[in-house]
């Protein structure tokens, strides 16, 4: 708010939404804001597809016997749910929608470094998604989202190659986005906006981009080899043909574990923004939180072996991976402690984005701590492959990332649409989602610990109460996800006009109009102050500038 308000280039009242109309002006746009919205539409569709698959699974699991599907269809259903949610929703969600929209605004830039590459990434993403959906309608894949060999490479008759091609192609869109964000953060910061003044969301996007660029190609290698193995019948993974199935798991998790951090780091960035804004206080230990993002990105590359404790990996490797997995929890915990400290010292306001952020902090903590259970070798042997794992990663992915994503959508919605949503409905749906989520996934911890294996379509009757609770929770969760779609959609047309800075937040994105003009700022902004400088008095500002908390 105290960064000077930059006069906008709204010539004739045109913001980015109205400068250029017609399908062509959207499909060929290189404006990062419009591309962010294109991504928003795409991933909302895929979230719905993955969500419908989840709903059908939960319905089937309401009773111990098979009622709705054959076991085989159930396998295809959970594979679809996993593939769509991971690669077509979670991986792109915050970076490509909110990152695309907000990153150049936060940096005081007119666009990303490579605007055409950005548009290309959206097309590549949709092409990959088309392959994935093609695989789905042509019969589906029953391997689970992990494509474990030799089942995926030799035995299954489902459409692995098509699905792998789809995931392979979407990988390139991830790499394009990563390259774009890295170059933009390095080269397009406004004068005065040095690294230690960057909003924490930028730090988290930067760390995410490093993982996108360095981990995604390894998944490409794994999928390439699986496709080649299926096509030519040669085995680098199939032990019957002289290959090593564990090698696939190494390649796969070398990508897919860092990918967990692709999915959670941007959410952490959103929470940092929201917590600072709605407690009107600079994030406690700004530098530590910034570097913890980088630490997570680096350490995240060293822990993939904890997925293979029971896969026949060397015990000594297991011990090392276990230790490293405990280490990666440290920077995550640092973030949680620093958010809490910020809240304690701050002046809290419970607006909708803040409710999501608080939900994130609590649920991420549960997900993270159960992750430590799983990183302990002996405990992992007991709960490996059970619903305990399912609950653990849903607490991170859904309780963490989806809450972060929705929080971010609500936080930047006035900037994106120029209008305010209905605050009461916002709060209600945040609470519904929080309750529905816990009802869905907490029972899964319990039944997993009691021995209910994941990926089973039918189960012993003793587990039915847990499954029923979980299915009931999923219904509530579904309602919670539908509500924002309705009231946000309504507000985009009918909502009260939002000013440039409805939250009284800091940061360059709030210094321009809502919605911003096509080129964001009429002139390049100059940055004189630290991030999250909410102080009013000049001497306080001086103290902040010196970096004191």
């Amino acid at each position, binding site marked *: 708010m105290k960064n000077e308000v930059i006069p906008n280039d709204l010539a004739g009242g045109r913001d980015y939404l109205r400068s250029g109309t017609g399908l062509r002006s959207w499909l060929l746009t290189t404006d990062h804001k419009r591309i962010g919205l294109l991504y928003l539409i795409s991933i909302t569709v895929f979230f719905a597809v993955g969500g419908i698959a989840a709903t059908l699974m939960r319905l089937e699991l309401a009773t111990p016997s098979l009622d709705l599907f054959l076991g085989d269809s159930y396998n295809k259903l959970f594979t679809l749910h996993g593939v769509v949610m991971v690669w077509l929703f979670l991986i792109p969600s915050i970076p490509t929608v909110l990152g695309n929209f907000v990153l150049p605004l936060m940096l005081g830039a007119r666009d990303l*470094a490579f605007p055409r590459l950005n548009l290309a990434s959206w097309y590549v993403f949709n092409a990959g998604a088309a392959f994935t959906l093609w695989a789905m309608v042509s019969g589906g894949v029953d391997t689970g989202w992990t494509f474990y060999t030799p089942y995926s490479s030799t035995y299954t008759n489902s459409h692995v190659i098509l699905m792998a091609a789809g995931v392979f192609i979407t990988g390139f869109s991830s790499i394009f986005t990563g390259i774009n964000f890295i170059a933009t953060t390095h080269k397009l910061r406004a004068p005065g906006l040095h690294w230690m003044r960057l909003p924490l969301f930028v730090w988290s996007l930067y760390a995410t981009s490093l993982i996108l660029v360095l981990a995604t*190609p390894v998944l490409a290698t*794994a999928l*390439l080899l699986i496709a080649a193995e299926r096509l030519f019948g040669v085995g680098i993974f199939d032990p019957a043909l*002289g290959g090593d199935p564990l090698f696939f798991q190494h390649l796969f998790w070398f990508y897919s574990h860092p990918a967990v951090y692709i999915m959670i780091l941007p959410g952490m960035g959103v929470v940092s923004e929201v917590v600072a804004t709605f407690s009107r206080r600079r994030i406690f230990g700004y530098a530590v939180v910034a570097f913890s993002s980088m630490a997570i990105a680096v350490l995240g590359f060293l822990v993939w072996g904890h997925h293979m404790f029971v896969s026949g990996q060397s015990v000594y490797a297991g011990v090392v991976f276990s230790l490293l997995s405990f280490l990666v929890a440290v920077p995550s915990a640092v973030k949680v402690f620093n958010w809490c400290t910020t809240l304690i010292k701050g002046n809290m306001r419970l607006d909708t984005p803040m409710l999501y952020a608080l939900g994130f902090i609590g649920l991420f903590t549960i997900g993270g701590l159960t992750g430590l259970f799983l990183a302990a070798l002996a405990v992992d042997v007991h709960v490996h492959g059970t619903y305990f794992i399912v609950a653990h990663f849903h607490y991170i992915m859904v309780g963490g990332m989806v809450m972060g994503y929705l929080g971010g959508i609500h936080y930047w919605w006035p900037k994106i649409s120029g209008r305010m949503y209905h605050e009461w409905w916002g709060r209600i749906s945040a609470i519904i989602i929080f309750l529905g989520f816990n009802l869905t996934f907490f029972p899964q911890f319990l039944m997993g610990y009691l021995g209910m294996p994941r990926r089973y379509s039918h189960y012993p009757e003793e587990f039915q109460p847990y499954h029923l609770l979980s299915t009931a929770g999923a219904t509530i969760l579904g309602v919670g996800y539908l509500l924002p779609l309705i009231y946000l959609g309504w507000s985009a047309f009918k909502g009260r006009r939002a000013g440039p800075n409805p939250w009284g937040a800091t940061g360059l994105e709030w210094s321009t109009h809502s919605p911003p003009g096509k080129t964001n700022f009429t002139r390049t902004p100059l940055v004189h102050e630290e991030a999250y400088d909410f102080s009013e008095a000049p001497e306080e500002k001086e103290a902040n500038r010196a970096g004191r908390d």
Partner: protein
Amino acid sequence: MPDATEQLQPLGESFSDRAHQDLTGHLGMWAWLASEVMLFGGLFLGYAIARVTYPEGFAEGSRELDVFLGGLNTYVLLGSSLAMALAEHAAKAGRRRPLLINLGAVLLLGGLFLAIKFYEYYDKALKGHVPGADFEFSGEHPQAVELFLFLYFTMTGLHALHMLGGLSVIGGTFLRTAVTGRMPGPLFVTATALYWHFVDIVWVFLFPCLYLVR
């Protein structure tokens, strides 16, 4: 010749000047190359595991490859990298003729590399050495040799795809420079050269791993 380059690559709206834009482009290229290293890295890891598991089979497989042609290709590719470095130099000096000559040399040598490579593939196909249902091999370790050749085809095939990508960009630059008479931005040529040298370096690792383990 700033005016001439302006035509080829208009300045993006995010940038204050051309040097800024070109440096950003370099950074993007380096990030892309880092990604490429990881892509090939996964394959080299697979190679390492399989070779440690089947040392004799891999030696036997390697003996099936033609060291002479592989060695020749190494010289051809290193030669093309030299030409690329000279082209970069010419672009920086703003000299059109040497730029065209050197880019032409890169295209010729790159094309020669691919021609030799495809001849080698053709030769393997004739001998029934393409992994898959029709694979024939009468030596001691047919399964390990098939695995070796599978890696050979995958790794050199991926490398050849990268060569094709590089050659089409260089070919485009060559044609535009020859036809329009305008010089490409020197830093654009540098970014292309970075990519070309990277592809070259991959081959420098592929050659000993595949041809020289006999």
